């Protein structure tokens, strides 16, 4: 009985949170079109988020490209299909691995950062100070950050993909003496718009999810300084879960279009 009531309580609070997040997201679409536009803060956030994640995304992309090629080469060689490596790596990276891995990195890096930053602003009354100074803190803090993550994530994904493909080329060059021109030609020959467009659209949604959930957790942070850590932590967990759900929906929808 106790367990059932606990489960019901958790379910209730989860549903309440989903409702609050929906309201918070709805408010974004209302505020984003209202003046004044905080353009300077938006640019600052874009620079900050892109710059802060560039190295990590680059290194991760490079290692993934490298490892992916190293791991798949022996098996493909057995079947005499080693020449398919550039095609396989580029399609996998661009369609799936690049967007999801970059988004997960950014969830940890940017999502938790936003959660902690806004959470700390909430508990130290900085958000209230903005409110009483006649500024709309939602517009200044949330709208700018969500727009920045939505715009920056596809760019980071593109950057990660390019570095990943370069990592793969390095392995191919060392193992099979493949030239860069040949490698890139093979990549370009296999890639189609139907590979690039859905993954780019998906990346925008990933970026939006990272921004909105990070802001939601931080903006509604309670319970003093302990709440800041909790907000950052919950932001990462919630975003990661949401990314896989979005990914599943995106793949499902893309497949419907492929079938048509």
């Amino acid at each position, binding site marked *: 009985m106790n367990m059932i009531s606990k489960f019901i309580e958790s379910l209730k609070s989860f549903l309440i949170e989903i409702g609050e997040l929906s309201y918070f997201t709805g408010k974004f679409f209302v505020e984003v079109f209202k003046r004044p536009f905080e353009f300077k803060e938006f640019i600052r956030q874009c620079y900050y988020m892109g710059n802060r994640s560039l190295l990590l995304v680059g290194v991760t992309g490079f290692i993934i490209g490298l490892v992916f090629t190293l791991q798949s080469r022996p098996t493909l060689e057995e079947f005499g299909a080693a020449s398919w490596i550039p095609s396989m790596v580029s399609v996998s990276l661009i369609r799936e691995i690049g967007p999801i891995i970059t988004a997960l990195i950014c969830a940890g890096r940017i999502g938790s950062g936003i959660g902690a930053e806004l959470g*700390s602003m909430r508990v*130290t009354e900085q958000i*209230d*100070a903005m*409110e009483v100074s*006649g*500024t709309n803190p939602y517009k200044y803090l949330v709208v700018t950050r969500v727009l920045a993550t939505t715009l920056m994530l596809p760019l980071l994904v593109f950057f990660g993909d390019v570095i990943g493909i370069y990592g793969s080329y390095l392995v191919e060059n060392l193992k099979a003496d493949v030239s860069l021109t040949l490698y890139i030609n093979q990549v370009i020959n296999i890639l189609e718009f139907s590979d690039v467009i859905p993954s780019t659209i998906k990346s925008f949604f990933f970026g939006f999810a990272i921004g909105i959930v990070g802001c939601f957790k931080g903006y509604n942070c309670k319970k003093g300084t302990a709440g800041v850590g909790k907000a950052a932590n919950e932001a990462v967990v919630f975003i990661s879960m949401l990314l896989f759900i979005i990914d599943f929906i995106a793949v499902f929808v893309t497949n419907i279009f492929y079938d048509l």
Partner: protein
Amino acid sequence: MMQKKNIKPIIEVKDLHKSYGTNHVLDGFHLDLYEGENLVVMGKSGSGKSVMIKCLIGLEQPDSGSIIIMDKNMNDIHREDLDEIRTEVGFLFQGSALYDSMSVRENLEFPLRRHTKKFGVIEDTTPLVMEALENVGLENTINLMPNELSGGMKRRIALARTLILKPKIILYDEPTTGLDPITSKEIIMLMKSIQEKYKTSSIIITHDIDCARVIANRMILLIDGINYAEGTFAELSASKDPKIEAFFK
């Protein structure tokens, strides 16, 4: 005590109620603030002083009761009107609430840039920023970040940020809490000099008896969510009521 019967208050609070679950923080609180007056509200920790002051500026919503600030009823006010009221009502937060990611200059410019209605579009904010910093005696901190300032300096900068909009009313939420006695005294004297210079009206939430002695024209003791006692510092400090005496011992 000054006779205020024929003067209209600039802040009028009537029958204010606010509860958190079963905890009735405010239970019919009322106050009037008149022009040029320093009104001190005292009460124990957790007595609802900060909640009350946050209700005044719209950071908390009261359950019932009316708040009228400069003839505007806060219960049915639009966002634009509320922002306009907020340019006339400054708020000094207990923890200063300076924006961590901005320098002192940017902290002071922040409200200025957003109130073009009151000041017009200001091309060069430096003179206004410098004036506000001179008022608090910290002109040389203009390019520092908040983490490079001491607690007392932060409180002064927060006061400068409040002053930059030239408000008619200033709400102070425990302005001396967490400061050493000397810095507290400096902040109190600064508040007094600002009041004399700009003729502002103030509501000061505090449990610092020295602060109340120096600055209060009138005092309200907030106990159990109601106005337990009102009067000047001299009147209240002479009271024999044990609950009132406890504050002045």
